[in-house]
Every structure is written in C-alpha cells, then in structure tokens.
C-alpha cells in the first residue's frame, strides 16, 4: 500500500514540475502578447502594474479569481461547469509525452505522436459543450464554428505529421528528435518544408488563434463559445488556449526543428563553446520563437471569412500534404542526404 502512495506522490511531483512552470508561462505569454502587439501597433502595452508592467498577469489572475461565476438562466448547470474542465484537461494532458531533453520526459510512449493528436481532438468537447450548455445563440454559433474548424484542420495536421512519422520512422517524440541529430541542416524542416508550413498554420487554426479566431470573432458573435463564462471558469478557457499555443510551438520545435538539439552541432568551433547549454534551453528558445511568430501573426493578419477557412483546410492543405507525402516517399527511398542517408533502396 505504501509503495502505491509513494508512486502516486512521485508521479504527482513530476506532473507538478511540468504544470506549474506551464501555468506561469501561460501568464507571461499573455503579457508578452499584449506587449508585442502593443509595440507592433506603436503603443507601449501594459506598463502600470509593477516595474514595466511585469506584475500585470498576476493582477489579471487575481481579478479573474475574485470575480463571480455567473450561470445563465436556462443553462445546463452541470455541463456548463464541466465544459472548461473538459477543455483544459486534454491541453494539460498532452504535455505528458513531451520530451524536454534526451532523458527528461514524463511518459516515454511509443505512440506519443498519436496521443497528442488524440488529446488535441478531445479538447473540442469542451468547446461544444460550453456552447450548448450556455443556452445562448452566440455561444452555440461559436462552438459550431470552432468544432468544425478543429475537425477540418485536424486532418491536415494529421497528414503533416504523417510526413514527420515517415521521415523519422517512429511515433515516439524522443526518437523523432534523435532522428534529426547532426546540426541545423539535418533537421526535418528542409525536406518537410511544405508540411512544416501546413502544420504550423493548422496549429494556429486548431488553437483558434488569429487569423483563424472565427469561434471568438468579437465583431460577429461577441466572444463565441465562452461568451457566458466569467471569473475562474473563463480563466480556465483562457489558460487552455494559451497552453495549447505553447504546446503547438513546442511540438513544432520537436517535429521540425530538432527539439533539444544544439543547432551548431557539427560546426567545429561554435559547437565546442555552446556545448554547456542544456538541451531544454534550446527547446525553449525554439518554442519561444514560434510563440513569438504566433503573436506576430495575430498582430498582422485580419480574420479569415468562414468559407475561406474551410476552403483553405479542405481544398488547399489536404491536397498539398498528400502530394508532398508522395514526394517524401521518393526522397526517403532515394536516400536523399543528410536526412535519409542509409534508408534508400535504389
């Protein structure tokens, strides 16, 4: 009995070690987003709470926690309160298989890649239930938009990941990164460039971020599926959205940009002086770049129209991925170096 409790305690500690920094990262991602978008619009962003506004996210959190949770009349109370939990649970659960370094991973699963796809697809339940249980037309419209968007882009995303799978020959995230060993030019982003772009755009669409933030389209349906949520229940949606953003950024770094690997591998002098940098720092650096790119996209592009989103997902992305998968097959079979050397059959 005792060893069971100890087991649970150890696993719980590991989970806490991933989730607490993640929540802190989410808080400061909101800060970074407001600052960066502010700067791109020639404003200064939040700068009043604490030095340079550094305490702004803390203030936001306290405000959200203190606010009342309003349950609309006619809402299905149980499901209404369950929805935020259903939304946030998968976005946290997906972090279980993320390798932060060669040995630093909570669950070294052989189906890690599929597991992540499964978790991101479960999150859609939170959205649908939130929209339905709110007893509000805007919420329902928002949830329908969001659900169809998530389902459509999941296909393109899955196809793009099939490319990664073919290139690395494994669904284990650690193995995928290890397959890219050997410096900047050995990473998969070059042979999989179209898939990288498609994966990235689908990732942005799947997290309902601008320019694909139709489900939240403030100008049309107020705030979409979470329009009726306030206080901590809204905070959970917010937290999950940003956790998903960070997840997509980290995954892009893992799949296409060599995860924790040093980009200067194989370059004689620089490799030597950058060897002391721990792998997790490289991973966070790469993920940070993609997070910045996501915010950059939001500051730049106007929102897509609904039919355009569907057209892009079904009529552009899926055909492009299928074509590139064929090209990729030939590249692998021909053993194109330096990525697929030794795997050729010709």
């Amino acid at each position, binding site marked *: 009995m005792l060893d069971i409790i100890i087991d649970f305690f150890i696993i719980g500690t590991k989970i806490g070690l991933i989730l607490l920094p993640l929540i802190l990262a989410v808080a400061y991602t909101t800060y970074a987003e407001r600052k960066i978008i502010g700067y791109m619009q020639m404003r200064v962003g939040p700068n009043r709470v604490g030095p340079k506004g550094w305490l702004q996210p803390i203030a936001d959190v306290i405000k959200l926690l203190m606010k009342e949770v309003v349950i609309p009349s006619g809402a299905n109370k149980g499901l209404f309160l369950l929805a935020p939990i259903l939304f946030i649970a998968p976005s946290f659960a997906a972090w279980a298989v993320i390798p932060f370094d060669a040995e630093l991973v909570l669950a070294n699963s052989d189906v890690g890649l599929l597991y992540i796809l499964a978790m991101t697809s479960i999150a859609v339940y939170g959205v649908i239930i939130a929209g339905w249980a709110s007893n509000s037309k805007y919420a329902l419209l928002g949830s329908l938009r969001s659900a169809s968007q998530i389902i459509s882009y999941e296909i393109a995303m899955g196809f793009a990941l099939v490319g990664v799978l073919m290139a690395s020959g494994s669904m284990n995230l650690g193995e995928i990164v290890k397959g890219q060993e050997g410096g900047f030019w050995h990473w998969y982003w070059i042979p999989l460039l179209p898939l990288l772009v498609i994966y990235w755009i689908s990732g942005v669409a799947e997290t309902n971020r601008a320019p694909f933030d139709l489900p939240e389209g403030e100008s049309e349906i107020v705030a979409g599926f979470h329009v009726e949520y306030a206080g901590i229940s809204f905070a959970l949606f917010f937290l999950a959205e940003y956790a998903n953003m960070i997840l997509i950024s980290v995954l892009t770094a893992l799949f296409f940009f060599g995860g924790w690997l040093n980009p200067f591998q194989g370059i004689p002098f620089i490799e030597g002086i950058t060897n002391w940098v721990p792998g997790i720092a490289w991973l966070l650096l790469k993920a940070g770049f993609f997070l910045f790119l996501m915010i950059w996209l939001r500051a730049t*592009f106007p929102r897509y129209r609904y039919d355009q989103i569907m057209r892009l997902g079904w009529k552009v992305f899926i055909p492009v991925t299928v074509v590139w998968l064929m090209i990729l097959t030939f590249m692998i079979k021909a053993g194109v170096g330096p990525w697929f050397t030794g795997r050729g059959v010709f």
Partner: protein
Amino acid sequence: MSKLKHFFRSYTLKDLLTGLRITGKHLWRRKVTVQFPEEQTPQSPRFRGLHALRRYPNGEERCIGCKLCEAVCPAAAITIDAGPRQDDGTRRTTRYEIDMFKCIYCGFCEESCPVDSIVETRVMDYHFEQRGDNILTKAQLLAIGDKYEEQIAEDRKQDAKYR
C-alpha cells in the same frame, strides 16, 4: 503565364511575408503612446468637458433662469426651475440640474447662454461613485465654476474674437 506566376506567388506565401515584414518593422518604431496622468495632449480653449456655472467677479451668479439652454439641449439633459429670489426679487433658478449620463457634450448650452453662465470646462477625467451622482445640482455646478474660474475666463477671452 500569369497563372503560373500567381501559383508561385501564393505558394511561396509572398503576400503574407510582406505583411509580416511591415508589422515586424513597426515593432521597432518609436512609440506614440501618451502616458496619460503624467503626460497630456494639448487641449483647445474650446474644449468641451465637465459643465460649470459661472459667477460675476462680485460673486453674483450669472444665470438669470432664461431656460434657453434647457430648450436647446438636444439630449434634454438640463432641468431648470426658476422664480424670483427671496431677498431682492430678481429672477434666478431655484433648480439647475444636468444629467451627465444624458449629456452629449455638444456645447449648445454654452452657445445659447446670453450671460456666459453655463460653460463647459476643460475637465474631462471625472467619475461618479454612487447611483444618482451623475445628476449635477446647481450647488455642485457653481462650485466647479468657482474652482476653475481662472481657466474658464482665460479660455473665453481667447475665443472671444471668434464668437
């Protein structure tokens, strides 16, 4: 040929990259934010902010209860009751109220006033804490006038030649 050109343009994401370049450049531009309480933008002497009732230099209130402002107010924000004053029998207002929630700050009351009594000051950062505080009474309006009289008089002087 143009189809081919278009094909390459759309699949290299040229348009998107152009957009990203523009916002990327703006990231480094000088910021134009005015840090409000510490810095303020210049105001015109014609600025229309919080209302005030003025007095003559001898302390006599200017308003004669002609109700022109009440009549001209497009939002019907002004309510006036008038009658002879107890001690000297001159026509004065017994009630002069402005509902600040209704007011649209058009400045018509100011324009219509024959004795420059009701004016709009430069004050624009004010708030109400209790329900009902939004209705400014005569005493409050006179107090505002007393407080900002110097500024009000200066602004009227500057604008006088255009009126």
